């Protein structure tokens, strides 16, 4: 299979893996969670390095995921019951964890280039090169695709099994709590999902694309969707469209593919928004003219 197809395949997988938790996060007003997790993984990376002493990047995954989950939980807990606005708690928690990470690195491993940019964040362009192999050397496809596929199956199962629960706990958590839902548990599962997907995706495609795919495609879908199901599907769709168009333009201009995909999410947002705007304007004017026309004639 062609390299470029693997890149597209990974891009679309990342788009879907991010759009699912991204939609729920957006509805819970926590769209910046991706950014927060991207920075809050630093102490986890240090911890993984300290425990293992090695430099194989796979060992950084669990450390980073746990650290990201702790951050996400802390943010959710701090902003519960409006103790603190959600953006203030986000700003507080991830800067704190990042600062702790920098302090640990400065104190104990100054001589190692140990930051998430270097040891965790990959780039989508390398995905086709990093493949799993059988002992005979037969290629089983890119690691990233495998990891993302597993994550995706996990998510689809979690979202599908609890679809109604996700809807209720996101829409009206107070009612859900009184009806006997353990709202905190749903929130914790969502945060674990987000942390897992972000870290898995950071490793294959880098941070900026994950932050973009968590936030922008759900926002595009939210411009017009009227049901949660449509919201989930359409944000996957817009993520995929951004992937394909960003990839094409990056090849054309020979620039960073991840960066271009992130930019394209923004471009598609503008396109969809203007399309909706023009359609509404067109409908309104045709409505107005038809109504003006009838009484006079």
């Amino acid at each position, binding site marked *: 299979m062609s390299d470029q197809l693997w890149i597209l395949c990974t891009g679309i997988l990342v788009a879907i893996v991010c759009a699912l938790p991204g939609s729920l996060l*957006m509805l819970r*007003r*926590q*769209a*910046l969670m*991706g*950014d927060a997790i991207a*920075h809050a993984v630093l102490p986890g990376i240090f911890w993984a390095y300290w425990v293992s002493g090695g430099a194989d990047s796979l060992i950084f995954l669990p450390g980073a995921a746990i650290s990201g989950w702790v951050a996400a939980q802390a943010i959710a807990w*701090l902003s519960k019951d409006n*103790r*603190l*606005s*959600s*953006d*203030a708690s*986000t*700003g*507080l928690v*991830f*800067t*704190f964890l*990042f*600062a*702790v990470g*920098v*302090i640990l690195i*400065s*104190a*104990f491993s*100054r001589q190692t280039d140990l930051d998430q940019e270097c040891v965790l964040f990959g780039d989508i362009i390398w995905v086709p090169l990093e493949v799993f192999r059988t002992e005979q050397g037969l290629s089983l496809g890119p690691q990233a695709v495998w990891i993302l596929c597993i994550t995706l199956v996990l998510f689809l199962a979690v979202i599908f099994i609890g679809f109604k629960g996700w809807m209720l706990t996101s829409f009206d958590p107070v009612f859900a709590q009184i009806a006997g839902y353990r709202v905190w548990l749903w929130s914790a599962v969502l945060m674990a999902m987000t942390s897992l997907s972000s870290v898995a995706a950071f490793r294959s495609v880098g941070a*900026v*694309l994950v*932050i*973009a795919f*968590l*936030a*922008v495609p*759900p*926002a595009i879908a*939210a*411009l017009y969707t009227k049901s949660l199901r449509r919201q989930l599907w359409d944000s996957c769709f817009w993520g995929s469209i951004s992937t394909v168009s960003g990839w094409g333009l*990056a090849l054309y*201009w*020979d*620039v*960073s593919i*991840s*960066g*271009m*995909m*992130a*930019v394209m*999410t*923004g471009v598609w*947002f503008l396109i969809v*928004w203007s399309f909706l705007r023009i359609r509404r304007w067109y409908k309104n004017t045709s409505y107005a003219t038809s109504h003006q026309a009838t009484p006079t004639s």
Partner: protein
Amino acid sequence: MPESLWIHDAGLWWLLFGLICIAVSCGLTGVFLTLKGEALNGDVMAHGVLPGIVVAFMVSGSRDLIWLIPGAALSGAATLWAKRWLVATAKVRPDSAAAITLSVFYGLGIVLLSKVRQSGTAAQAGLDRFLFGSAAAMLTDEVWIAVILTLSVVILISAYYKGLTVFVFDPEYAAVAGFPVQRLSFLLTFLTLICVITGVQLLGVVLVASLLVAPAVAASAWTHALHIRLILASIFACMAVLGGGLISASGDGLPTGPWVVVILSFFAFIGIGKKYFVRKLR
């Protein structure tokens, strides 16, 4: 072996004075930002400066801060403008709008970086980190600039105190009552820009967000009066800089900026804990 005890080191106190100035102006601005529900504007803007830096480099071909800082400021302002447009016109929620502008602008920065790399000039090496220094390495000129900036922030805030209060509390009412909403909104953007551009050079992209958020959160736990909250935020910012500076001066491997942030976060956590336990105990 130090020649003199560090307490008597005038340079240290001068540095701490400069840092305090910046922390205080960030703390004051942060109180308004946090109340307005825009606490993360600092973070968004700090990421949004990247395309500006790269474009400034592409245009000027030099890494001189005289070129990079205006580029950074323009693109930072554009980021906030885009965010505001998303919220006001496209009816996107503030948190989504923040994430959208942050990721798209940063993505644009990466695209430009990958393009500028192909030009192969040596000067572009390390461009993405060039603006980001260390809090311990503040220069004398920069202290003076910090003093001037802080004075202007304080003067601007006191001059527009009433207007800002009403604007932050209830923008619609402020518009109806005839406050210059456009100017106030511009003022808040301008204040954020000052704080972010100076803060980014001392603390880096990530930690500057903390200077804006943490003092405001810490202060909000102890008082409901806005003017006291502003004073408290400044005091917390001062204490954190002093604490962080002294810790950092006490031994090697203790970076100044991150320690200031950690102490500030502790103040904020203590504030949140105080609120929480008071509620629990009664």
